[in-house]
């Protein structure tokens, strides 16, 4: 692959702005690399080559003329296919939205456009982000760049694979129950889900609104912080998006941070069957942190055991409400076989939605019904409170909670991950906390494994400092790219 693609965004943006590197060259290199390898990976659903090149030329002209550069002027980025870019098709990897053209920009897209970023294409995902392997996409299966017989994880598998294989330096994803951090960990890149309410979801396709957040993929924690600094911030169009205080995301270099840090490891980690290699590398990481002066404490969150079940109930309930908007009337697929209005709704949805989506809608509708509401939905919401209380208590003993990102390695296509695999990631969504996965090591499979740091709500800046410090001591080589 072209060496220009190994640039980190922090360097690339400066090189472009100073005219040392032409945006045109980096964009051309991206497309050449994508064309060469994406037939094997299938990370992208759609590419915007002509547009991207035109934009790159414009950026280069602007720079040559001495005009003021955007913060990400001329830097290419991949966008998950559930985030709207005005005038572009957005499918959410569903047949229902096969011909849907976004009528407006998502807030994050508006901000990235203002910063001068170039959208090279739309990345593959599980249909409406429902899945953890990117296999429920109605269009294609994405492969893990480190082992193309394995899943990249999901639901943002396309973004993870694209960044991992060097097709784009960074990408956007969305995370409802680990959908950024799990594929990031499987593909050996940094994956970040912000505190609930730090980044606007306006213009993103909703899955479960009390969990959904837009977040980022990049090779390094610094690039993650950089991208976050552009897209974060209050937005009246997403009522939950109101960061309490402005978070300075630019200065994340604090080499001393580990020395005074207390990190909690959940006792419950021992309750689960964890891949032996993951355990081995995780323990090595813990020892490394200790050597840096980190104080490791054991924390007790018994409610972790309820995480997958309570996520299932609340997520499906919210899905059933959110997906009700897809009725085949105002946009999207309409069945030609409907005999009445109701029949038309039912057939439009039946013919265009995949099995996983329909199953979740049905389960969600059922747990919200009068018979089950109190016993299932209401109960789950109370157990959610229990979990949040226990996690809040745990933070009295530590600054961050540390765990392996997943309990399993990425499986082969068609195989399933256990219900508990992403439990430590999902807890962050249930409690609205920020979480970041950082590559830790390569395992014997030749596939990377990652670790997860979770902080208190709106501690995102400090989370980056800690993750950045870990990245420096991690044995994972961020300069290594998969050979394809």
């Amino acid at each position, binding site marked *: 692959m072209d060496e220009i693609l190994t640039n980190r965004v922090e360097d690339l943006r400066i090189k472009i702005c100073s005219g040392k590197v032409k945006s045109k060259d980096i964009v051309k290199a991206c497309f050449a690399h994508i064309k060469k390898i994406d037939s094997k990976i299938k990370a992208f659903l759609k590419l915007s080559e002509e547009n991207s090149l035109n934009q790159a030329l414009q950026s280069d002209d602007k720079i040559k003329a001495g005009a003021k550069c955007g913060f990400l002027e001329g830097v290419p980025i991949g966008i998950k296919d559930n985030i709207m870019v005005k005038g572009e098709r957005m499918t959410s990897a569903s047949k229902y939205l096969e011909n849907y053209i976004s009528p407006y920009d998502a807030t994050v897209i508006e901000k990235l456009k203002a910063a001068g970023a170039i959208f090279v294409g739309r990345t593959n995902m599980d249909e409406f982000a429902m899945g953890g392997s990117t296999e429920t996409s109605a269009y294609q299966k994405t492969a893990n760049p480190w082992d193309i017989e394995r899943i990249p994880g999901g639901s943002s598998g396309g973004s993870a694979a694209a960044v991992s294989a060097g097709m784009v330096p960074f990408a956007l994803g969305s995370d409802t129950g680990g959908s950024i951090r799990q594929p990031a960990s499987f593909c050996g890149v940094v994956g970040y889900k912000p505190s609930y309410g730090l980044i606007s979801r306006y213009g993103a396709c909703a899955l479960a609104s009390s969990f959904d957040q837009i977040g980022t993929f990049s090779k390094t924690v610094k690039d993650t912080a950089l991208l976050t600094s552009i897209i974060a911030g209050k937005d009246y169009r997403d009522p939950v998006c109101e960061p309490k205080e402005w978070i300075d995301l630019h200065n994340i270099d604090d080499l001393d941070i580990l020395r005074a840090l207390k990190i909690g490891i959940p006792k419950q980690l021992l309750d689960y069957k964890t891949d032996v290699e993951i355990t081995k590398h995780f323990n090595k990481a813990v020892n490394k942190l200790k050597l840096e002066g980190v104080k490791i404490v054991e924390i007790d969150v018994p409610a972790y055991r309820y995480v997958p079940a309570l996520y299932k109930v609340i997520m499906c309930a919210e899905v059933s409400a959110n997906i009700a908007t897809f009725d085949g009337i*105002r946009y999207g697929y309409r069945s030609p076989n409907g005999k009445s209005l109701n029949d038309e709704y039912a057939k439009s949805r039946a013919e265009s939605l995949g099995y996983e989506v329909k199953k979740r809608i049905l389960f969600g509708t059922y747990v919200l019904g009068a018979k089950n509401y109190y016993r299932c939905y209401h109960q789950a919401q*109370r157990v959610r409170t229990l979990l949040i209380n226990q996690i809040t208590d745990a933070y009295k003993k530590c600054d961050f909670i540390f765990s392996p990102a997943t309990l399993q390695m990425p499986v082969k296509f068609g195989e399933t991950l256990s219900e508990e695999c992403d439990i430590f990631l999902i807890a962050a969504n249930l409690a609205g906390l920020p979480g970041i996965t950082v590559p830790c090591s390569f395992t014997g499979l030749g596939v990377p494994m990652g670790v997860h740091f979770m902080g208190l709500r709106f501690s995102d800046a400090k989370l980056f400092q800690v993750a950045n410090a870990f990245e420096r001591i991690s044995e994972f080589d961020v300069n290594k790219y998969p050979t394809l």
Partner: protein
Amino acid sequence: MLKEELETTAFLARIDIKEEEKRKYLEDINKMFDYIKILQEPDVTDLKPTTHVTELRNVWREDIVKPCSKEVIDQMLDGAPAKEGTFYKVQKVIEA
């Protein structure tokens, strides 16, 4: 979940399910039900349910009608599977 309950739920969710698909849905959904039984385990009667992690409150604003440009109206209607003038076209709702 019983077969009749699946049928009612499918009607409520407006999803047409074919007879031959019902077995698989029932099997999978009942598996999910078995899995979530664990939520009955803890005593949470004293806890308030969490609907959101933010302290959401009502935001009031004046109800002002803003004009909408023809461009936006066209864009919105462009996505419609069927339309007439500036309206979405649907099947007859009231039967004669």
